[in-house]
């Protein structure tokens, strides 16, 4: 039972990270219908920036809390800036191009960013400082859930709530929903599409950065390549939940995380990723629109 609980919490933790990254995919897809392949790289850049800032501050002798806050803040800002720039450089000129062109551009951007970090920094794994302290009150439960896992779960929950409020109740949230439903109509009623798209990229990238910081300090090391697999997994989560749907991305992330956690715990850790992809293939075959996605029938 305890083992089960441990796996479940492990799965939830993993799943919330997937969910954080998946939200970026799902929001971008919902609005411009593009699989933003470079999104995983934004997550990686978020983690790297946090690492660099944290290391610098540590050497300069800042205290623990201020490092945590400053490093996270800078990482989120930078990721958002990268997301914004990537959209402007690689996707915006391609709005009216054939459907596959932005996708290729995205793949190119992903390769570019990976190698950019590889060249400017290092190809080795870098030790990531543990930004999340171990709480004393967590001690009795340490065999089931660690402090960093708790922080991940709580942060994710808080971020999700913020996002929901943003999308449901703010003006820009309404504009985003309108754009997702009908771009040209939204434009006609005065929504500034370019701005909405930029904001979407900024929000998505910030979420990815938060995911990046959390996971990096949880695992303790990063390299330039972490974005690729995380990106694919997160995209899988988004599709699993029904792409374009925000609760779907969260649910998809959690389902994926738990599946992986249980499969590695009870079956074999070698095939962790195989389970993830098999789950995806199966769900899409039996429920092509994803768990929460609505199947759209084209009007004839």
């Amino acid at each position, binding site marked *: 039972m305890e083992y089960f609980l441990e796996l479940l919490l492990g799965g939830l933790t993993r799943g919330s990270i997937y969910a954080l990254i998946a939200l970026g995919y799902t929001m971008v897809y919902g609005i411009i219908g593009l*699989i933003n392949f470079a999104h995983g790289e934004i997550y990686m850049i978020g983690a790297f920036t946090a690492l660099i800032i944290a290391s610098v501050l540590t050497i300069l002798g800042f205290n623990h809390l201020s490092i945590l806050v400053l490093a996270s803040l800078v990482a989120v800002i930078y990721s958002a800036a990268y997301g914004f720039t990537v959209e402007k450089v690689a996707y915006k000129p391609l709005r009216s191009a054939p459907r596959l*062109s932005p*996708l290729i551009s995205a793949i190119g951007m992903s390769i570019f960013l990976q190698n950019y970090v590889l060249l400017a920094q290092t190809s080795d794994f870098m030790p990531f400082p543990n930004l999340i302290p171990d709480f004393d009150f967590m001690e009795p439960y340490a065999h089931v859930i660690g402090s960093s896992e708790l922080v991940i779960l709580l942060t994710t929950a808080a971020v999700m709530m913020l996002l929901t409020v943003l999308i449901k109740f703010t003006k820009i949230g309404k504009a985003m929903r309108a754009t997702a439903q009908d771009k040209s109509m939204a434009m006609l009623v005065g929504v500034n599409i370019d701005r909405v798209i930029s904001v979407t990229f900024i929000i998505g990238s910030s979420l990815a950065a938060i995911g990046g910081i959390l996971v990096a300090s949880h695992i303790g090391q990063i390299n330039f390549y972490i974005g690729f697999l995380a990106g694919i997994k997160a995209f899988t989560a988004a599709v699993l939940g029904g792409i374009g749907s925000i609760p779907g991305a969260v649910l998809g992330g959690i389902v994926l995380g738990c599946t992986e956690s249980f499969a590695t715990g009870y079956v074999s850790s*070698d095939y962790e*990723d195989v389970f993830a992809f098999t789950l995806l293939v199966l769900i899409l075959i039996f429920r092509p629109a994803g768990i929460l996605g609505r199947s759209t029938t084209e009007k004839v």
Partner: protein
Amino acid sequence: MKLLTSFKKSFLVSIWFMFLTFPIMVIRVNPIEEIIEWRWWNMLLVGGCSFVLSLLGRYFLEKKELMAKRVADSGVIATTFKKRLFEQRAFAVPILIIISFAAIIFPFIFSTYQTSIMTTALIYVVLGLGLNIVVGLAGLLDLGYVAFYAVGAYSYALLNYHFGMGFWAVLPIGAGLGAVFGLLLGFPVLRLRGDYLAIVTLGFGEIIRLILENWNDFSQGPSGIANISRPSLFGTQLGLEANTVYLYFIMIGFMIFTIFVVNRLQNSRIGRAWIALREDEIACQAMGIDKTRTKLNAFALGATWAGMMGVVFAAKTTFINPASFTFLESAIILSIVVMGGMGSIVGVIVAAFILILLPEYLRAFSDYRMLLFGCIMVVMMVFRPQGIISNVRRTYRYGNNKGQDINHRETEEV
């Protein structure tokens, strides 16, 4: 005045990029020795480069828009040099002769190393043409094409390792297995719509790779399979150098064969059905085309080519491991198709040569080659999203001349 504003804008862009690249380009920390390295020089570099590139980008985008406008205004596209090159027999024939001549003498002029690189490029040409059937013609976005390539390579490696089977014997088996896997995957997933298909095929590609990596008893895991036999010529094994040349000509043969097949297919009943499917699925079905079957045809046929090339690849490198079949491989092949111009044979060939040979010859700055590769992909899409050579549909001649003496004007599509 206009120049001044674009200077101003580019200046702002360069400031933005200096800010953007600051933590990653400028700071480098050695956490163990606690040293911070400040590389201010890089910041200047980024600033300068982004200023120049931004100016250039602005100029070219403007030019592109101007061109589009001019075309829209006049309604006709001027006959470009490129068009003349491919459409008129008087131009096409001598050029083809020159190219074939160059292809034949290539291995005798250049070193074994160069020949080997060229063979690799040819493999990608054929892979690109194969994927072109799936993506370019039928419009099915396949991100796991490399899986079928792996199937072919491992079928040769394993059959050779366990039973000592030769290249020519396994070639049809590899092709067949590729097709079988294509059908196996195609049956359940082809009813998914475009983007889902993309992610499922991507997932499938990863599954195949991960299985190869982890199922040690079957595939020897990450260490791979070594000492795979090279192809034999009439039962005799050739030396390394002769073999490289031999493989080169095998690949030339394959390329000609593939061009022949794809060219015939795309202007056939099946090929038209593929293109129609890409254009509008609903209308396509209403015209009496069996959607699933047509898609499955394209998918399996594409997979067949990947399977064949897998066998060639295994025979060429004599060593394979799962690391050769990553998603990046699929991405490169897909880029060849899209950059070449979807559905265009000549375009795919040109793109394959650029994308494969460029990184090879960029080995001089080997560290930067993948960076440039990514960069070229983005730049290419921004400035020429329709690909290097856009596809022109074939035109037919019609008339009331009865019987077999049909002279369809065989305009090779360009």
